[in-house]
């Protein structure tokens, strides 16, 4: 278990070094997702409340899709927290992508704290019907 955690940390480290604005500290929340696949590819929705566009990063590295975001909520000065159901304002989740997806054409859209990712399948990987000729 320990070695696995380290592996994960090393991964986020390399992401951060690539000139990212966010730095991972401590454990992050695993955002809830909906994943749907049709003939065109996969659509993924992820709940990232409080994350603005500039604090969200979507990366594909070594066949892994990494979604990382940091929630930032305006709070007045001198706020004392009494009850917190969300303690870590960081979200992170990773998925492995198989080679049949076209990672160059991933489309990402963030609206009202919900990220929608469209990951298209490669043209050649799309299901097709083969005509059988009678002869």
């Amino acid at each position, binding site marked *: 278990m320990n070695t*696995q*955690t380290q*592996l*994960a*940390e090393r*991964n*986020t480290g390399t992401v951060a070094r690539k000139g990212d604005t966010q730095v991972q500290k401590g*454990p*992050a*929340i*695993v955002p*809830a*997702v*909906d*994943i*749907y*696949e*049709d*003939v*065109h590819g996969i*659509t*993924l*929705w992820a*709940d*990232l*409340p*409080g*994350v*603005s566009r500039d604090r969200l990063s979507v990366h594909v590295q070594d066949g*892994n*899709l*990494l979604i990382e975001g940091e*929630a930032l*909520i*305006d*709070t*007045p*000065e*001198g*706020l*004392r*927290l*009494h*009850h*917190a*159901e*969300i303690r*870590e304002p960081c979200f*992170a*989740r*990773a*998925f*492995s*992508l198989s080679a049949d997806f076209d990672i160059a054409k991933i489309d990402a859209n963030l*609206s*009202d*704290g*919900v990220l*929608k990712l469209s*990951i298209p399948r490669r043209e050649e990987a799309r299901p097709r019907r083969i005509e059988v000729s009678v002869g």
Partner: protein
Amino acid sequence: MSDLLFNTSLFDEFDRIQRQMSSLFSGLPSSIRASRLSTFSQINLGSTDDSVEIVAFAPGIDPAKLELTVDKGLLTISGERERVQPESEGRSYAQERFVGAFRRAIELPRDADPDNVKARYANGCLTISIGKRETSRPRTITIQ
């Protein structure tokens, strides 16, 4: 904080533990075609000298479908989240995101002023600020 105030049942507690457990393994990629779970509209609550601040984490909701009421010192946040509709026929691999109606009630402290409530929905978070009554603010008393 008592459980009564925050509507946390034993099962919610299990959910929370499960979420914390799963977040320990968050860095590891899981296959995009197989995944996990969650609960809805988490709340954080805090206060300053002049106000009570509440944040409800409710992403993907039409602000018109959010209802906020204050009745006898009880603040209720309710709303509904609809299922996202994919454009074409296919297979679903994960449906972890909350769908349906939700309601959270928070008992406000006695010094909160129900006539002075400000609410804002941005980036999927509902931020509520409730002013405190003038008389309850901390003050220094000069000794003569």
